[in-house]
C-alpha cells in the first residue's frame, strides 16, 4: 500500500486509484481556511505544518484556488505563486490541489478564453490536481480548463456540484458525469462537490453507488462540508459505496463549516474495514500539534455564530460562504434577521430561481437577492447586476427550469421579453489583448512584469497593482507569523520579534517607545538587529489610508441620502455608476452598485431630482460614508 507521489504521470495516478485497496485523503487546508477563518490562514502557518503534512501521505493538499488567490494578494500580501513555490520546497512529495471555478476561474464572472488558458498554464506549473466546477453544472464552461490541464500533464478532477431537492436525482447526476467523461475521458478523478454538506449519509452512498455502476473506471473523490456536523457519516457511506478519495482537514483548526477532522474519519472507517492508503497517522497528529498554538491568532476571523448549523439543509449556503455571510450580517447590523433570511427567504429564492447549486458565484446571487428581498421590503425590487446576468443566461442555461415570468419582469423590466431576446444567452467574452495588458501593467509598476504578475493583474487589476507596490515598500511579509501579522493593540515596549526573512536571514526587532511630539507626529522606535530605527507618522493620516476618515453612522448616511447626498453605506468597491450627471431620477431609482465581500448591493436614490455631480468612478474603493454622488431637487 503506497501513497501517490507528486510527479507521478496522470495515467499511473488513475491506475493506482482504480486498484486501490482502501481510500485516499485530501487535506483540504484551503477550504478549511476559507470556511472557518475567512481565508486568512497565513503561509507562515502552512509552512510550519509543511514537514508533517508532507510526511502524512495525503493524496493531495488542497491549498490554492477558490477565493484564496484574491485574499492572498488583498489581505495577506503574499504572492500566490511564491506561496506554492515555498510550500513545494517544504513538501516535495505531496500533490498540490486547486479549486477552479471553470470559466469564472478564481473570480466571480466569466473570463475571456485566452485569459483562462494563460492563467491555467501558469498555475499548472505548481498545481497537480485541478478540481474544476461550474455552479450551473454547465460542462462547456469547464472545457478550456480541462484542455489546458490535460496539456500540462496534470490531473483533471471535474466536479458535479451536488444539491438536494426533487430535481436532484441520481439519474441527473449520472447523466451529468457521463457528459463530463465524454469530454475528458476516464483518466480523471470525478468529484462529488458537496459544498453545502447537504443530504444524508444514505443519500450520498446511493449517489456514489449509482455513479460507480455507470462509470466503474472513474475514481470518485467525495468533497463535503461539516456544517451540519454529519459529514463524517456521509464520508463513511461514500467510501463504503466505492469512493476512492475523500476530503478532511487538520483537527486543531477544525471548526464548523469546513471539512471534518482527518483522524475522526480514519478511526471511523477502520471499524468498517477501510484503511487510508499510505497515511502516517502519527504525522497527522503531529501536524495538529505543531500548529495548534497558532489558532488563537486567527480568532478574529472565526465565525460570528458558533456551533453547527443543521439548518444548512434548508438554506443550503456553501461552507465556504458561511463565514463571510455571517460577517456581513454582523457588520450590516442584520444578524437578527438571519433566521428569516436563511430559513425562509433563501429557500424560497432558490426555488424561484431554478433550484441550481448554491456555490460561487451562484451562491452570492442567491444570498444577495434574499438579503435585499428581506431588508429592502419589495421582493426583487433591487436586483443586482449579477442576478440580471443570471436571468439573461450569461452564466449558462438554467439546469432544471426557468424562473417564472414575473421575476423576469421585475428584474429586466416590463419589456423583458425584448431584452431577453436581444441580450440573452451565453456569449463568449472577447479575448483580451495580452500584449496590451502587459504594457499597461509595465506602465503601472514601472518595469517589465513577469508572466505571473500579469496573471494576477488580469484576475484583479487594481488589487494586484496595489499588492506589487506593497511588496516593493514592505518586502515579503509572509515571513511574519500571525502573532505579528494580526497583532492588535500595539506591542509592549521591550518585546522582541524574531523572524527569518525571505532570503533566509535571521532578524530581531525589539519594540521601543512610540512617543507623539507637539505637532502630533508619532515616532515609532524599533531596534532592528541591535540598531535603533525611527519611523515617523504624520499627525493626520492621509486620505484613503486606513485608520482615518470621520466615520458616519448608518443613520447619518441615510439622512444625507434623503438630502440628496449619496454616500457609501459600507466599505466596498463601486462596480457601476448607473446614472449620468444631469440625469433626472425618481425616488428608488438605482444610482450605483457597490460590491463588498463578493456581494453586489444597489444604491438607490432617496429623493427625486437631478444628478448634479458624481464623485467616484467605476472601480473606486470607498469607506463607509464615502461620497458617491449628489442629487439636487428639481427646480
Amino acid at each position, binding site marked *: 500500500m503506497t501513497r501517490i507521489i507528486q510527479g507521478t504521470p496522470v495515467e499511473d495516478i488513475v491506475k493506482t486509484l482504480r486498484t486501490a485497496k482502501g481510500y485516499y485523503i485530501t487535506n483540504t487546508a484551503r477550504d478549511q481556511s476559507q470556511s472557518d477563518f475567512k481565508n486568512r490562514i497565513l503561509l507562515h502557518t502552512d509552512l510550519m505544518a509543511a514537514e508533517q503534512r508532507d510526511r502524512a501521505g495525503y493524496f493531495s493538499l488542497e491549498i490554492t484556488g477558490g477565493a484564496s488567490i484574491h485574499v492572498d494578494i488583498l489581505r495577506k500580501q503574499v504572492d500566490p505563486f511564491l506561496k506554492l513555490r515555498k510550500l513545494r520546497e517544504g513538501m516535495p512529495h505531496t500533490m498540490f490541489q486547486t479549486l477552479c471555478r471553470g470559466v469564472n476561474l478564481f473570480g466571480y464572472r466569466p473570463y475571456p478564453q485566452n485569459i483562462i488558458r494563460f492563467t491555467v498554464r501558469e498555475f499548472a506549473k505548481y498545481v497537480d490536481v485541478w478540481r474544476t466546477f461550474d455552479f450551473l453544472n454547465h460542462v462547456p464552461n469547464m472545457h478550456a480548463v480541462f484542455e489546458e490541464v490535460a496539456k500540462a500533464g496534470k490531473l483533471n478532477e471535474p466536479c458535479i456540484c451536488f444539491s438536494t431537492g426533487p430535481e436532484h436525482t441520481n439519474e441527473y447526476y449520472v447523466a451529468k458525469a457521463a457528459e463530463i467523461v465524454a469530454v475528458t475521458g476516464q483518466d480523471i478523478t470525478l468529484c462529488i462537490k458537496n459544498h453545502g454538506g447537504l443530504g444524508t449519509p444514505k443519500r450520498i452512498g446511493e449517489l456514489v453507488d449509482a455513479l460507480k455502476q455507470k462509470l466503474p473506471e472513474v475514481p470518485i473523490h467525495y468533497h463535503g462540508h461539516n456544517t451540519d456536523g454529519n459529514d463524517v457519516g456521509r464520508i463513511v457511506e461514500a467510501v463504503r459505496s466505492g469512493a476512492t478519495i475523500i476530503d478532511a482537514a487538520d483537527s486543531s483548526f477544525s471548526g464548523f463549516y469546513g471539512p471534518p477532522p482527518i483522524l475522526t474519519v480514519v478511526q471511523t472507517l477502520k471499524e468498517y474495514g477501510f484503511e487510508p492508503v499510505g497515511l502516517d497517522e502519527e504525522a497527522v497528529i503531529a501536524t495538529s500539534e505543531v500548529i495548534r498554538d497558532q489558532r488563537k491568532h486567527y480568532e478574529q476571523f472565526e465565525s460570528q455564530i458558533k456551533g453547527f448549523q443543521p439548518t444548512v439543509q434548508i438554506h443550503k449556503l456553501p461552507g465556504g460562504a458561511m463565514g463571510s455571510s455571517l460577517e456581513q450580517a454582523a457588520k450590516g447590523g442584520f444578524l437578527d434577521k438571519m433566521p428569516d433570511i436563511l430559513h425562509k427567504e433563501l429557500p424560497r429564492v432558490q426555488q424561484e430561481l431554478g433550484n441550481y447549486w448554491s456555490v460561487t458565484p451562484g451562491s452570492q446571487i442567491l444570498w444577495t437577492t434574499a438579503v435585499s428581498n428581506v431588508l429592502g421590503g419589495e421582493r426583487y425590487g433591487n436586483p443586482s447586476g449579477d442576478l440580471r446576468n443570471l436571468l439573461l443566461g450569461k452564466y449558462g442555461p438554467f439546469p432544471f427550469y426557468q424562473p417564472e415570468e414575473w421575476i423576469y419582469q421585475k428584474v429586466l423590466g416590463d419589456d423583458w421579453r425584448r431584452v431577453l431576446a436581444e441580450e440573452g444567452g451565453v456569449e463568449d467574452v472577447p479575448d483580451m489583448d495580452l500584449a496590451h495588458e502587459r504594457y499597461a501593467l509595465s506602465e503601472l509598476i514601472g518595469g517589465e512584469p513577469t508572466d505571473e504578475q500579469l496573471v494576477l493583474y488580469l484576475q484583479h487589476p487594481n488589487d494586484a497593482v496595489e499588492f506589487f507596490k506593497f511588496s516593493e515598500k514592505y518586502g515579503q511579509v509572509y515571513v511574519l507569523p500571525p502573532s505579528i501579522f494580526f497583532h492588535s493593540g500595539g*506591542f509592549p515596549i521591550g518585546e522582541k520579534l524574531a523572524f527569518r526573512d525571505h532570503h533566509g536571514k535571521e532578524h530581531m526587532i525589539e519594540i521601543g517607545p512610540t512617543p507623539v511630539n507637539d505637532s502630533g507626529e508619532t515616532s515609532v522606535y524599533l531596534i532592528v538587529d541591535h540598531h535603533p530605527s525611527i519611523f515617523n507618522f504624520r499627525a493626520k493620516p492621509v486620505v484613503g489610508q486606513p485608520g482615518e476618515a470621520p466615520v458616519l453612522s448608518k443613520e447619518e448616511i441615510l439622512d444625507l441620502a434623503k438630502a440628496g447626498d449619496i454616500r457609501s453605506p459600507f466599505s466596498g468597491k463601486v462596480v457601476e455608476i448607473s446614472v449620468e450627471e444631469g440625469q433626472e431620477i425618481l425616488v428608488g431609482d438605482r444610482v450605483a452598485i457597490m460590491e463588498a465581500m463578493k456581494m453586489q448591493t444597489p444604491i438607490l436614490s432617496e429623493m427625486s431630482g437631478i444628478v448634479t455631480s458624481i464623485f467616484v468612478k467605476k472601480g473606486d474603493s470607498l469607506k463607509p460614508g464615502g461620497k458617491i454622488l449628489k442629487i439636487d431637487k428639481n427646480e
Partner: protein
Amino acid sequence: MKKRILVANRGEIAIRLIRAIQELGYEAIAVYETPDEMSRHIRIADEAVLLGDGPRCDYLNIEKVIRAAKRSEACAIHPGYGFLAENPYFAKACEKTDIVFIGPTSDIIANLGNKVVARQIMAEAGIPMVPGTQTLKQGREGLAEALDFAGHYGYPIMLKATSGGGGRGIRRIESDAEMKEQIPIARAEALAAFNDDSVYLEKVIVNPKHVEVQILADSHGHTVHLGTRDCSIQRRNQKLVEIAPSMIKDKKLIDEICETAVRAAKAARYLNAGTVEFLIDQDMKYYFMEINTRVQVEHTVTEMITGIDIVRNQINIAFGKPLSFTQDDVQIRGHAIEVRINAEDPKNDFMPEGGKKVSVYRSTGGFGVRLDGFVYQGYIIPEVYDSLLVKLTVHGFTWDETVGRLKRCLQNFAIRGPKTTIPFYMNIANEKDFLSGDFDTSYIETHPHIFYYDEDSSEVGKLSRFIAEIQYRGENPFAK
C-alpha cells in the same frame, strides 16, 4: 600651552583635519555657522568658535576666520578644500598676521589658480599640455582669437574661466555660433563665481581618463609624489568615484606621468600638498590640466595605498619640517576605492536631499575599510551646504578584493531618511566595465543602466517599516 590649529572648514573634512591635528598632539579649533550648530565637528574639536549666521558667507569671510584664529590663539590655519582653500587673499591675510597657512604660499596659489599663468609656467618647463589659448582679450578681439583657435583645432572646444577650478566655470562649445553666444555668458558667470571675468580656450580631449598625481613638497627642497589616482567617474566634471592607483597597465607611462608631475611642481616652486591633474586621451597621450593647491576630497585613496598621512605631512611642512621620507620610501601597495556617499537622488539628476532627517545611520567596518564622515542618527541635513555625508574608502591587496570589499561595505551601510547615492554605487560596483578597470570620463553617460535600482533593497528595512505600521495603527491596516 599646546599648539593650536584652526580648522577653517566644516563637514567630513573638518573632522579629518581635527583628527590629524590631535594625533600630532596639537589642539584643534573648529569654526561654524549657525546652520551647522548641530554638526559633529564642533564636539570633536577642542574648542569651537561661532563665525556667524552664514550660510556659507561666514566660512568664506577671511576677516572673521582670522579673528577667530587670533581669539582662540591658534598659530596656524588649515583651510581643507573648498571655501577659502584656494583663495590667495586668504593665504596672504594669514601671512600678514603671522598665522601659518597650511598650504602653499599666496603667490603659488595665485599663479596656479590663474589657469593661463599656470599653463605658461608649464609650457616653459616643457610639460605636455592640451592645446589652448592665453586669456582671451575682451570684446570682439577675444572672439576673433577664439574663432581662429577653433578654426585651427576644430570643435569641440572647452571654454574655461581663467580663475576657475573644481570643475566649475567650464563649458563645452560645439560651433562658432555657440562660441559667440557663450563667451559673454561664461564671462558673467566667472565674474560672479571667481570675481574675475577672464576666460580661455582649450581643445577638448574626447572621453579622456582623468589621472592625477599627489605631490608633497617641503621647504627644504624635497618634492615627492605619492603615485596616481583615477577620477574618471564623474558627472558634469564632479567626481563621484576615485581609485588609486590608476588602472593603466603601462608602468613606464605611469612612471613618466609621476615624474612629469614632480617636474611640474618644481617648475611652480610648489610647496606643501598639491595635485597635478592630467588628461589621458585614447592614444595614451597625456596632457597637463592643472595643479590643485589644496588637499583633495579623494586624498584618502592615496593614503590607503601608501600608508602616508597627507594631512599630517601638510601640517609638518607648514611648520617648516623636512619630509621624513624620500621618494624611494614611497611604496604603492594594493588598490583603494573611494565613493562619496551623498544625500542625493541620482535618479532625479542627483537632486540634493537637504532638509531631511537621518532616521537611521548605520555604518560599516572591518578590514581595509575607512570612513570619513560626520553625520549621525537624528542629524538633519542642512539645505545650505553640500550633500556629502560620508566618504567610504576601501583598500585591498588586489583590485578584485577591493571591489568585493566595496560591495560588502555598501551592502552593510544603512542610511534612512534621505535618499543616498549608495544603491547607485552598488550598481557601479557590479558593472562589468568598472570591474575590469576600464572606464573614462564618459562612464556615467555610457552606462545609463546604473540608474536602475530599488531604493531600499534591505529586506529587514522594509519589514521593520511594516511592523512600525502595525505598531502605529494598533493593528495591521492591510489585513482588514
